């Protein structure tokens, strides 16, 4: 087991070394910018992954949370506030919106949770579209500047890599904490956790706040990246793509969001140049992933590696206790 864990740590480190080295590998400006897009999407997907993987709560509203933070930054920039104020307003807006989500959804589970987050996300979209005195309506807000020290594209890229590393580690810590264990308990059986004396809505509220706060940060990064925010960033479509990333990468895996975000962003930005019907392609990839690679690319790769390892060391009993803890992948218990 220790050998497996050290292997994971080495793989994890290798990914980040590669990410840090990426701008120095003779890549073009467009590629570095695309890599920033991928990483920001990966941060957002990681927040969805945390809620869905540990909490069993699949959210269809995280795109709108990020968008509301982006609008906070946009509004601050329109009023000519300083960068500090821009950060405060972006995070403030994002956290207030997250609180609304969390309060409305904390008593629900499964499908109801999905629909509540979907509906609140659509309200955010509607507000972005119609409250044009603040959001400038359909045109969106342009010309939002990022701080001086991040002005260079490579500097911004490295900042995003550091952010991604910090978010990944932070979510890992939360997930390994007693709080994370409680959350997984609720995912597996809410009624049991209730009878053990846990106050379930509080766990859901806190989990959503953690996830939404990081999603707001990702929204701020995205507006710094593109200098632009419009209602389309709050569309359901965005949130759906986040779920697609999480499922493609592998629900509940650490590196899944990065893998999923890479695939989706590349299909959306690169494949769309040559294939006009790329949403169909994305839909097909998604459907095939659910039918044939339920635990996603990272999850399936891990399973394959485990099978190969087990074949090499036949001495180990087949029912390794370590396997039991990580089997339930999605909300498999509708009635509980």
């Amino acid at each position: 087991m220790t050998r497996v864990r050290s292997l994971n740590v080495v793989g994890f480190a290798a990914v980040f070394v590669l990410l840090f080295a990426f701008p120095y590998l003779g890549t073009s400006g467009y590629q570095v910018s695309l890599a920033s897009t991928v990483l920001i999407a990966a941060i957002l997907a990681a927040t969805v992954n945390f809620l869905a993987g540990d909490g069993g709560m699949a959210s269809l509203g995280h795109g709108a949370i990020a968008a509301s933070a982006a609008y906070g930054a946009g509004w601050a920039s329109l009023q000519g506030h300083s960068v500090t104020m821009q950060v405060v307003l972006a995070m403030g807006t994002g956290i207030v919106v997250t609180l609304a989500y969390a309060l409305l959804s904390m008593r629900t589970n499964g499908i109801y949770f999905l629909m509540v987050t979907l509906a609140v996300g659509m309200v955010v979209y509607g507000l972005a579209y119609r409250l044009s005195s603040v959001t400038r309506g359909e045109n969106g807000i342009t010309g939002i500047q990022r701080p001086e020290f991040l002005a260079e594209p490579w500097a911004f890229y490295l900042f995003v890599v550091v952010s991604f590393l910090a978010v990944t580690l932070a979510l890992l810590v939360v997930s390994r904490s007693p709080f994370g264990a409680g959350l997984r308990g609720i995912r597996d059986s809410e009624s049991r956790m209730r009878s053990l004396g846990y106050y379930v809505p509080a766990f859901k509220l806190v989990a959503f706040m953690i996830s939404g706060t990081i999603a707001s940060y990702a929204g701020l990064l995205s507006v710094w990246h593109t200098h632009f925010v419009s209602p389309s960033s709050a569309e359901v479509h965005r949130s759906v793509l986040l779920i697609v990333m999480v499922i493609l990468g592998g629900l509940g895996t650490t590196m899944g969001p990065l893998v999923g975000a890479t695939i989706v962003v590349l299909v959306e930005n690169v494949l769309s140049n040559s294939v006009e019907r790329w949403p169909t392609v994305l839909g097909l990839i998604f459907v095939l992933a659910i039918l044939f690679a339920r635990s996603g690319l990272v999850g399936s790769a891990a399973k394959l590696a485990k099978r190969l390892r087990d074949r090499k060391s036949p001495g180990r009993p087949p029912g390794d206790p370590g396997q039991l803890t990580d089997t339930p992948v999605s909300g498999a218990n509708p009635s509980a």
Partner: protein
Amino acid sequence: MFEPVFLAQQALNGLSFGALLFLLASGLTLVFGLQRIVNLAHGAFYMLGGYIGIIIATTTGNLLLAAIVSMIAVGVTALVVELGLLRFVRGQEMPEVLLTIGVMFIIADLCLAIFGGDPKTLPASASIQGAMQIGALTYPWYRIFVIAVAVAIGIALALIQSKTRVGAVVRAGVDDREIISAMGVNISWVFTGMFVVGAALAALGGTIGSGVLSIRPGIQNDVLLYALVVIIIGGLGSIKGAAVGAVLIGLIDAFAKAWIPEFAYFTIFAPMALVLVFRPTGLFGRTA
């Protein structure tokens, strides 16, 4: 603002929109009641049904034919989705819902490819012309017709569910799948049938609704949102809940659009939030 004619007009607007919402939400809620899945491709079925209906109505000028063809075409699409995809993940709540998202993506994108991006409406030749005249109140007959269709479908669904053998099998499937299977009913085919019927209802809504709301890219999300709000308020799986929720949301939406247009988007969510806080399973939903 509060003149009787104006109020009556808005009330009729609300009822006709509510009627459309009922056609949408009843299919969604029936499928949920039996199979426990929320079909997020329902809005896409509505859109596909609307496009097909408009095309048939434009070429033949016959609304009835348009509705029938579009219901059959969408029903067949749903059958393929059910047998080709959903059967493989039966009973797994999340994968089922996520698969319907993938289906929504594909149908919406193919609709854009085939029918183009321009908004389309039911041609005047197939629509019902003229307006009803009662005193100072004038109101288009077509919208009255929409209300009549929804009422007829609602009564038919309620009668089928409570009086026929098919309805009895469906109700038994909702209550206890194991026992009804043990009694020799192939519940899997009942699921398939219900999924097809739900999609056909969405197609009917799309065809008839295209005379009220134009069909365009993105409509699948809008109508899905309204349908979700209706069934959250009414309670998942309940026809009665869908009817009450649809009328409620239709009326709230109409009056909000007339009185406070800037906040009209908000007003339909206020009742939903209240229902979720005080009765998380909806007005007529059962506790799990």
